[in-house]
């Protein structure tokens, strides 16, 4: 077919079928060729193609969960990036992308679906009622602390006193949104998703350009706690996943755990923190059930924690001081947890007494460990 018989009018006729990929291969090529030179047809082609994205059900296939990592991995192996996303930011990158894909599917009503946030406080379950939009506001308010430490504008810009307490920041942001008093660049209900998404992209981008140079800058996390940026971002990845499951539950949507590599990183970071948490709880006299008295000179004990699943592992944790010896020779008990249950426990979404898949030996020590894990949770 030559150009004369295959003209503008013919392309216009074909555009609907073209947008649905329902022409012959030759016709597709001819339309494609025509589009490079015709603004009018290009505009209509874009419009019709976008319309196809709105049709369902078959076009509305969920993206396979592992595909993002697969595609990006394949790309980066064919051309090495000049500026890479640092390893400590990759779980955050992946989890914000997954949550955003879930948010893309929400209808207007679903944004106001009720959500009850749960965490452990003073050895008991604390709750706070909010909505799907409120959960995203909470994520943004806490992500903002990381942004601030990097010198980026704080999107939540709450409390004039510049509090670094995650809960206070969240409440302040919620209040601003409710009263419509959010400042410049801060989100309102309509722009929440966009502000949160752009903010996450900006964080990832800033870390990429700064690379290892910022991995250890201190991020204030409330209560005098300081986390190095690389741990703070892993915490944000963890929280993004956990709160995405809150949102998914509220709108009755399935949601899978992070890819195994990322889940493994999140789990091992949490496990590494356990010895000092156990010690801090002992010092604070926080032990329920109460700790047995340790006789002076008694041998330091350890407990074996086995986390089952592809991202799990096997650890001996010192029970009597974070630097104490830990191994089979001084092991007094054994706790087995499923990998996702470990995370839900650490998020305060699962009660310690329901968590263990298996337990042997010293039950007091085992309970102490389960409570230490769940004490990591907060709003």
């Amino acid at each position, binding site marked *: 077919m030559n150009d004369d018989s295959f003209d503008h009018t013919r392309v*216009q006729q074909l555009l609907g079928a073209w947008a649905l*990929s329902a022409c012959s291969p030759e016709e597709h090529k001819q339309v494609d060729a025509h589009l490079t030179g015709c603004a009018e047809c290009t505009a209509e082609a874009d419009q019709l193609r976008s319309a196809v994205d709105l049709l369902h059900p078959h076009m509305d296939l969920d993206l396979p969960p592992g595909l993002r990592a697969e595609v*990006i991995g394949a790309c980066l192996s064919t051309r090495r990036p000049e500026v890479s996303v640092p390893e400590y930011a990759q779980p955050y990158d992946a989890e914000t992308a997954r949550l955003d894909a879930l948010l893309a*599917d929400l209808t*207007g009503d679903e944004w106001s679906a009720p959500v009850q946030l749960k965490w452990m406080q003073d050895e008991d379950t604390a709750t706070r009622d909010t909505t799907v939009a409120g959960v995203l506001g909470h994520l943004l308010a806490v992500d903002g602390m990381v942004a601030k430490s990097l010198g980026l504008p704080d999107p939540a810009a709450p409390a004039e006193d510049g509090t670094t307490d995650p809960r206070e920041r969240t409440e302040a942001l919620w209040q601003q949104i409710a009263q419509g008093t959010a400042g410049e660049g801060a989100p309102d209900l309509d722009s929440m998703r966009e502000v949160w998404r752009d903010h996450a992209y900006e964080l990832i981008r800033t870390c990429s350009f700064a690379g290892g140079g910022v991995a250890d800058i201190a991020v204030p996390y409330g209560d005098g706690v300081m986390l190095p940026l690389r741990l703070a971002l892993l915490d944000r990845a963890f929280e993004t996943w956990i709160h995405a499951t809150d949102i998914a539950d509220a709108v009755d*949507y399935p949601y899978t755990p992070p890819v195994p590599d990322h889940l493994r990183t999140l789990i091992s970071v949490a496990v590494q923190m356990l010895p000092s948490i156990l010690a801090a709880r002992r010092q604070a006299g926080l032990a329920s059930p109460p700790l047995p008295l340790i006789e002076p000179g008694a041998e330091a004990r350890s407990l074996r924690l086995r986390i089952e699943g592809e991202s799990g592992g096997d650890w001996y944790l010192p029970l009597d001081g974070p630097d104490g010896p830990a191994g089979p020779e001084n092991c007094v008990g054994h706790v087995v947890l499923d990998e996702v249950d470990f995370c839900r426990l650490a998020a305060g979404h699962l009660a310690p007494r329901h968590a263990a898949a298996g337990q042997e030996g010293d039950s007091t020590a085992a309970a102490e460990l389960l409570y230490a894990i769940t004490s990591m949770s907060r709003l």
Partner: protein
Amino acid sequence: MTGAPERAAQWERRIQVRLVRGEAAALGELYDRHARSVYAIAARLVGEDKAAREIVTEVFAHLWQHPQTYDPARHRLGTWLAMDTRERVAERAKGDGPGPVAPRQAPTEPEFTEPRAERIAADRALGALSTRVRAVLQLVHTGHRDYRRAASELGISEEETLRCLRAGLRSVAGAGGIGAEDR
């Protein structure tokens, strides 16, 4: 005032610069914005998940390796990616033997997903279309026929089939708030 289309065009120019610069974070943003429709086209045309994933990988890998081949002044990125996806499917089909394009089988059991707000508006627009337009659209879109086969199955002319597809998509676009823009 900058409207949504202008912002989208800006984003496309910017993402290309970032890809040229070799920014891995830009690749993630590109994937997040376009993977869904690239995968949908690939899955629909090859009808099989593994092959569809490979096509998606090829499409993004090509743009990552050769970001200069995309010209933001000429094409919207979504359209360009759709063209590239179809070409790769066609090439693959050639290599696999007979048939101009890979068999247009239905993908197996799509997962149920909650509709987006625009999609609900699109549904309403579909309901308002004439029975004929709806039948053609359905046969091509969910029945995976090309337009010639749809025409012969419905006993209408090819021209009429093309007219129905174009008119149907235009109404859906209108209801979904997608305007045609001049570039």
